[in-house]
């Protein structure tokens, strides 16, 4: 009898498949996930400041938020959209479900692929946005490690959200659910304004804390513009870890329900 295949090897093969597909679709992927945030940068980070409608310092609050939105959208879509196709009518995912590993590992691989794509989007958006906006006084790249850490945690939270949305929402409702979840998430995600700015509105300030994007955007602020006020680090890290764990649990449960009838 043949020796069992090491699980890590199967995992890497599954990941290689996803990265191959992602590489092939990178242009449409970047357009889909970063065009809107970048256009926002053009209007609010370039046009309006030059027209005098927006203070020049706004760029420092905007750039980290834009980075947060891009990585959130990319990680979310990188997992949710393929999941919907894979579990669709033809169940294309079956060749991967037949791979000799526990299906938990197959779901985990999807999340890792989502994290990697979140990184790619962030890496793409950061220099482009900075270029569009011009020099930003408070911006610092001294905390690259922190920046990577927050990118990782943020991508993780949104990949697990993608796992849940991609497997848990009936296909006929997916368009509606995306509009109902993603749009409010972006606008109440403290991406276009710092969380501290909500202090005069305490109800809003604490209600938005259900939104993982708040912590990603604030984390990006802490990493990129450490001199400006941002949410305390322990709160950011703890919230993203707890949210990722909860979303992984519900996401995996829904994945397993779809995978095994």
């Amino acid at each position, binding site marked *: 009898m*043949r020796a069992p*295949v090491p699980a890590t090897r199967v995992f890497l093969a599954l990941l290689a*498949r996803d990265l191959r597909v992602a590489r*092939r679709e990178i242009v449409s992927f970047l357009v889909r996930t970063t065009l809107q945030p970048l256009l926002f940068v053009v209007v609010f980070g370039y046009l309006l400041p030059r027209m005098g409608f927006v203070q020049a310092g706004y760029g420092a609050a905007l750039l980290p938020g834009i980075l947060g939105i891009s990585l959130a959208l990319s990680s979310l879509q990188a997992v949710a959209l*393929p999941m919907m196709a894979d579990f669709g009518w*033809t169940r294309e995912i079956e060749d991967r479900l037949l791979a000799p590993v526990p299906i938990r590992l197959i779901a985990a691989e999807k999340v890792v692929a989502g994290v990697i794509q979140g990184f790619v989007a962030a890496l793409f958006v950061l220099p482009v946005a900075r270029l569009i906006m011009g020099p930003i006084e408070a911006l610092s790249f001294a905390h690259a490690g922190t920046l990577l850490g927050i990118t990782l945690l943020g991508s993780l939270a949104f990949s697990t959200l993608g796992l849940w949305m991609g497997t848990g929402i009936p296909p006929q409702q997916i368009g509606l659910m995306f509009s109902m979840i993603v749009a409010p998430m972006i606008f109440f995600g403290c991406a276009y304004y710092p969380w501290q700015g909500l202090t005069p509105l305490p109800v809003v300030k604490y209600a938005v804390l259900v939104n993982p994007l708040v912590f990603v955007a604030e984390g990006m602020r802490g990493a990129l513009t450490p001199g400006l006020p941002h949410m305390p680090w322990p709160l950011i890290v703890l919230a993203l870890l707890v949210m990722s764990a909860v979303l992984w649990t519900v996401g995996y449960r829904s994945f397993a329900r779809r995978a*095994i009838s």
Partner: protein
Amino acid sequence: MVAPPAIETRALRKVYRTPPPGMLPRGKAAGPVEIVALDALDLQVRAGEFFGLLGPNGAGKTTTLGILTTRVKATSGAAFVAGVDVVTDDVAVKQRIGVVPQRPNADRSLTVLENLVFHAAYFGIPRPDATRKALALLESIGIADRGGAKVDQLSGGQQQRLMIARALIHDPEILFLDEPTVGLDPQARLDLWDLLRGMHREGRTIVMTTHYMEEADRLCERVAIVDRGRLLACDTPRALKSRAPGGTLIELTLEGDAAQAVEQARGHPGVLQAEAQGSVLSVYAERPGEVLAQLIRRLEGSGRIVHDIHLAPPSLETLFISLTGRKLV
């Protein structure tokens, strides 16, 4: 040491609840609707055997295959593949099996060749080996020139053969095929049969579901007839056919209603059973040649006109009808 059976199921039962609990509309008092797909199914397949599961749509064939290939969870009972429990050690089961699904479900984000190479990689086969095997398999299924094509560019028959190549690339001990010839044109079906016979000769265990009598008869060493989740009979096609009661079926299409001819036919020597449905008179007879000639003479003697004649020798089809009272397809 005696090798374990390739497949063994014990009192396998599967109940689907539709709609799933929790998704019922609010305020509805009625409980979830339960559909019993499998009801206490016991099967044994020997290693190296070509085994058929024959039954109409909804018989539980696909559910049985789903459980054996770890993709469906049984409600109760036990199932073993190569002696390994499909529930407690699904990973070890997955390593030993190849699966050809009912509907081709190739990975459409990948090319034809990539489908095979990546599937091999999921089973730990190094890339150079995988590529070599994949090219050889594409050659053997007659689509060697389509390796770089998108899956959608293949015809239905080619996609089905790609599924077989995918199921074989990691050299599984046991191959499962779920109605592999549905939707194929006659030539493609014959080609597929040859392919399957070849794989069986190599010593592989093959478990195939089908609702085509002929297919089960021509390919399988043993056939299990299932209907509504139950095993009705399980034997070699020859033994099953010999159990088909009533000899050969003679169908005569008459001018006008056949009902009055039934009594005439029943009284005839050699006729075991007769019934009428519209203008068709169905007669089961032991010596069909003799009976047919006499029967036609007798009917014509009483002024009836015979428009058409159809003979069906004892077959899995006539057995199935006698077991279930229904036709297969």
